[in-house]
């Protein structure tokens, strides 16, 4: 009897550890790949504005105008457009990742995770929001 119980426990432990070693999140879907490539292309235009401080990274996983006065008047409208497009794609990306993993309700947590990682990976000199929402230069 004892042997059977311990066998049962061993089987349970093996099962539990297999379940704990959860697989990576699914990010290889056509929708996510399309968003990624659109954002990568847009980054070529946005990078200069991150560096100049015109645009910064927000604490909620978006980008926002930080110093509009540093943008030449003629470019302001196009920068506004870039920011709006980027935020639209980011929202879609967070939503798609949650959906690809069969948990649409995870979108907000995916956004929180990304917000932190965008800021962690930002180059020095870029402006980012700290947890209380104040702008700080990295």
């Amino acid at each position, binding site marked *: 009897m004892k042997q059977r119980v311990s066998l049962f426990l061993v089987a349970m432990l093996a099962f539990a550890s297999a379940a704990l070693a959860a697989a990576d*999140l699914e990010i290889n879907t056509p929708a996510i790949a399309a968003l990624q490539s659109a954002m*990568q292309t847009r980054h070529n235009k946005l*990078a200069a504005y991150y560096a100049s401080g015109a645009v910064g990274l927000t604490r909620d996983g978006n980008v926002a105008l930080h110093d509009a006065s540093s943008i030449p008047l003629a470019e302001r409208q196009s920068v506004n457009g870039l920011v709006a497009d980027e935020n639209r794609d980011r929202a879609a990306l967070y939503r798609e990742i949650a959906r690809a993993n069969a948990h649409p309700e995870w979108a907000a947590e995916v956004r929180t995770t990304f917000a932190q990682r965008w800021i962690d990976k930002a180059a020095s000199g870029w402006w980012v929001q700290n947890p209380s929402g104040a702008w700080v230069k990295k």
Partner: protein
Amino acid sequence: MQNRLVGWIGTGVAGLTLAGCVTINIYFPAAEAEKAADKIIDQVWQLKPGAKPATPPAQTKGEAK
């Protein structure tokens, strides 16, 4: 008597294990999400995996510090 006790313990363990599986599926996998975020950010910002800054530092006047 002992057999019944063992039976109850077995049922309890099985129940907890099942509950654990459901829990694993419901809770947000933060570590995996972070890994996924890193992969995507590295691609969008064209970072080499493991590299820290998004753009190479412009000034290279000798060693800082």
